[in-house]
């Protein structure tokens, strides 16, 4: 006989204000098989949990229903409570009467009715629950970090310094990401390269880190603790093992006028190149599209110049297969293409530049050696206009969200400009100044008060060229009148957007993304560094626009999640796994194909003489993740999922 205990939680006022819990408890008490039906203000509190334990022991309960918040919140909590009271934890179910009821309804009577239905349905389910035992799976203690920007570097170092193996994959020829392009960084104005380069070197030299640059993740299979990853090592045409990074080849290469991606088009590079002088590793790559040899089969100047024969034009892409236990995704961001903003004249007037280009101008190691010079004529601009939110917070043409860092870097740019061009004057068009962060508001105030940047609240409608001046027309919404400022240079604070291949890449590794292509966390508040897939974590600007401190904090948080996972040799997994009915399986192998974890195999059923009678599908419980995809696929209903059996689900539905 079933003896079910039902515990109805008020969740303070969260549930009680919309669901009549007393009435609910009384009605549920009448339901067949219910031995206990009680309400309480907070069952998740210590006394609440104790009362559940006591009720289990006193009444020898055979199943428990917690009618409360979503199982995502507290299923684990209450399963533990049951286990501590001697009840198999899988005999505990949550009836979600908060998210799926009280939070979304206003009529108390109807919400109470619905809460009764939800609770009854779970009671009918739990009556059919089976005692389950957790499954142990081994954990491969090797982490994969994807992306070698500051976030990926931090995550890799943290994991490696704790003694675990890391493979760091960066698709560009060098580590560094965007931070290596920056000049000085807000809010302290440390030189970006000076604080980043030592960490890049540390990564390259770390005995626990295997650094794979100019490499990409091709394929990810498996699941938490047991991923199988295929990496493509793109052919560099330079042998990584022997090249000493002397740079002779780059000096000799006759193709010298290629616009440098690293310098955002403000500088030039050769066809065989390293993105920047401090590249890690300091090993060049040949840009096949620009190299004369690859175009017409003649040249090989670099090869002749290389003393140690490191250059090999026949090199092919190579593939590396890795066994990985956890993955940190740190693939970063891009800045938005400003082409959509024709009225700002980007691309038309050379002296309208992006913030990232300004960083290159302001960097001591950049194309102008740190002097602020106009791209058009190399003169020092006397008036500079900065336009904030060039793309951000603009649902019509740009992106709806705030890019979070532009207020700060624009203030920084105005400050750097004031420090470098003493007689210069800067104007900043802004919508709001969002400077929330340690030392941030102080920083922007300094720009305004000490460095004399004049901030104009309003948007710019047009930039045009008149008598050699860039005329910037906007409105000053505080004074309520239009303003036109003649400038020598205009800097656009372009929006931060996801990598162009972000969505495709998310599909390759199997994680969820939002409407823009930023990667989704498992829970925005409670699990901000876990992705939607177990064992895959997020760090840095691939999740949302972030500055360096936030990127690093998230990277370290991800690293600690990885280390927690690696702290044991095995992993306890929920026993929610599928199994097939060999008698009825038709052997169509649809499930084998449908299973996203390759957990289903073909199994031959033999007669006594060893002859195959038939082949059927068979689930490997070590690999199955309990997603249920196969169950929904199987036409002959030959697969069932423990914890969510057809009988349970059917009973749940029929109780409604």
């Amino acid at each position, binding site marked *: 006989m079933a003896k079910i205990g039902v515990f109805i939680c008020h969740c303070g006022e969260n549930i009680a204000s919309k669901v009549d819990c007393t009435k609910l408890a009384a009605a549920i008490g009448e339901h067949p098989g219910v031995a206990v039906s009680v309400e309480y203000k907070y069952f998740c509190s210590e006394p609440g949990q104790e009362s559940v334990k006591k009720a289990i022991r006193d009444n020898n309960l055979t199943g428990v229903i917690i009618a409360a918040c979503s199982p995502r919140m507290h299923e684990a909590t209450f399963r533990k409570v049951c286990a501590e009271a001697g009840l198999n934890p899988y005999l505990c179910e949550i009836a979600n009467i908060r998210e799926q009821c009280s939070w979304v309804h206003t009529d108390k009577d109807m919400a109470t009715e619905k809460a009764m239905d939800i609770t009854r349905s779970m009671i009918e389910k739990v009556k059919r629950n089976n005692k389950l035992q957790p499954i142990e799976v081994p954990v491969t203690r090797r982490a994969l970090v994807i992306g070698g920007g500051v976030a990926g570097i931090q995550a890799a170092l943290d994991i490696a310094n704790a003694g675990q193996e890391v493979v760091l994959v960066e698709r560009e020829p060098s580590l560094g990401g965007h931070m290596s392009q920056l000049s000085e960084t807000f809010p302290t104005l440390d030189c970006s390269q000076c604080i980043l380069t030592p960490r890049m070197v540390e990564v390259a030299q770390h005995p626990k880190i295997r650094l794979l640059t100019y490499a990409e993740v091709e394929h990810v299979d498996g699941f938490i603790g047991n991923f199988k990853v295929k990496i493509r090592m793109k052919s560099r045409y330079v042998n990584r093992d022997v090249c000493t990074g002397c740079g002779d080849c780059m000096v000799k290469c006759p193709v010298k006028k290629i616009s440098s991606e690293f310098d955002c088009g403000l500088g030039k590079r050769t066809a065989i190149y390293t993105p920047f002088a401090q590249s890690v590793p300091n090993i060049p790559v040949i840009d096949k599209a620009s190299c004369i040899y690859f175009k017409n089969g003649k040249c090989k100047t670099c090869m002749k110049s290389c003393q140690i024969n490191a250059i090999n034009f026949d090199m092919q892409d190579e593939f590396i297969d890795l066994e990985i236990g956890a993955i940190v995704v740190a693939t970063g961001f891009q800045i938005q293409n400003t082409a959509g903003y024709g009225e700002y004249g980007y691309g038309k007037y050379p002296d309208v530049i992006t913030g990232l280009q300004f960083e290159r101008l302001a960097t001591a190691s950049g194309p102008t050696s740190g002097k602020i010079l106009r791209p058009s004529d190399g003169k020092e601009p006397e008036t500079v206009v900065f336009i904030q939110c060039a793309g951000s917070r603009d649902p019509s043409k740009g992106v709806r969200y705030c890019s979070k860092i532009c207020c700060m870097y624009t203030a920084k740019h105005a400050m750097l400009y004031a420090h470098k061009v003493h007689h210069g004057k800067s104007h900043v068009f802004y919508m709001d100044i969002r400077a929330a962060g340690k030392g941030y508001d102080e920083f922007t105030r300094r720009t305004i008060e000490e460095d004399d940047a004049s901030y104009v609240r309003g948007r710019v409608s047009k930039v045009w060229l008149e008598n050699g001046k860039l005329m910037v027309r906007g409105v000053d919404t505080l004074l309520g009148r239009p303003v036109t400022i003649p400038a020598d240079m205009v800097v656009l604070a372009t929006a931060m957007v996801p990598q162009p291949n972000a969505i*495709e890449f998310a*599909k*390759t590794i199997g994680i969820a993304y939002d409407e823009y292509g930023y990667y989704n966390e498992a829970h925005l508040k409670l699990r901000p560094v876990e992705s939607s897939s177990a064992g895959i974590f997020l760090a840095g600007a691939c999740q949302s626009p972030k500055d360096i401190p936030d990127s690093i904090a998230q990277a370290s948080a991800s690293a600690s999640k990885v280390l927690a996972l690696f702290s044991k040799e095995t992993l306890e997994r929920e026993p929610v796994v599928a199994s097939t009915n060999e*008698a*009825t*399986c*038709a*052997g*169509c*192998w*649809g*499930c084998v*194909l*449908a299973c*996203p974890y390759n957990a289903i195999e073909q199994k031959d059923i033999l007669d006594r003489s060893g002859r195959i009678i038939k*082949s059927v599908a068979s689930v490997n419980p070590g690999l199955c993740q309990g997603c249920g995809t196969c169950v929904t*696929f199987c*036409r*002959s*209903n*030959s697969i069932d999922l423990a914890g969510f059996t*057809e*009988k349970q689900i*059917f*009973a749940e539905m029929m109780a409604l």
Partner: protein
Amino acid sequence: MITQEKYRSKVKKLLADGSVKMVIGYSPGSTADRRRPLFIRSFEEADQLVLDSNCIANLSGYLVTEGLLSDEKRVAIFLRPEGIRSLNILAAESQLNVDQIIIFGFDSIGREVNSLPGEHADEFSEFIGSIKENPPEKSREPLLYQLEQMNPQERFAFWKEEFSRCIKCYACRQSCPMCYCRRCVVDSNQPQWVNTSSHTLGNFEWNIVRAFHLAGRCVGCGNCDRSCPVNIPLRLINAKMSEEVLGSFNHFAGMSTTQEPVLASFKKEDSETFIL
């Protein structure tokens, strides 16, 4: 054009030299324009073979008769293009070894019967591809357009009326070459997902489940439609489903013996409009 007589002698030759153990074709039926399946193992049986434009049933389902192919001997079969496509699906779903099958492919325009070149299923891939690209004009039912014009309530009423006649005889299932499961979902009763009684709910459940199970698999042979004793226009559901699958996933059922089932394969380029 190739005559019935020529086929009879071809069949006899295959049986005589032992290349096949059986030929599945057509024989005269209960009325002048009906044909019934014929399983030829002897010369006498071969003489009953008929091949004309009335031979419309898709015979491929007989190939998965329990035990027929387990001795690894070969069987020849008369198939229209739809039949070849369903044979491809049976092969793709591992229900038979296609190397054991010799195909006599044929088609008819009006009363005229044409033979299709090829013997092994793989030899017809190009031909099937051409049907996908240029579906025959006549094929779309006028009723389909009418159904599309209806609003959901009207459409529901239409099907409720049609399904109300269903007597749950499962002739549609028995005749469909794709319904080869050892135990059909309607026969599983722990729990009983599909109601066995012939009331509105049960009839809807059955016909909707059947439609889903044939999504991306139905080849439009019409066996189900013709076998339904109460004339429910099952072809309309199947045809609509096929169009949806083709439009959404560019999947044309039965293209080849290695085609992946549309509902079990995931491609990066699949549209995700249904994920909120």
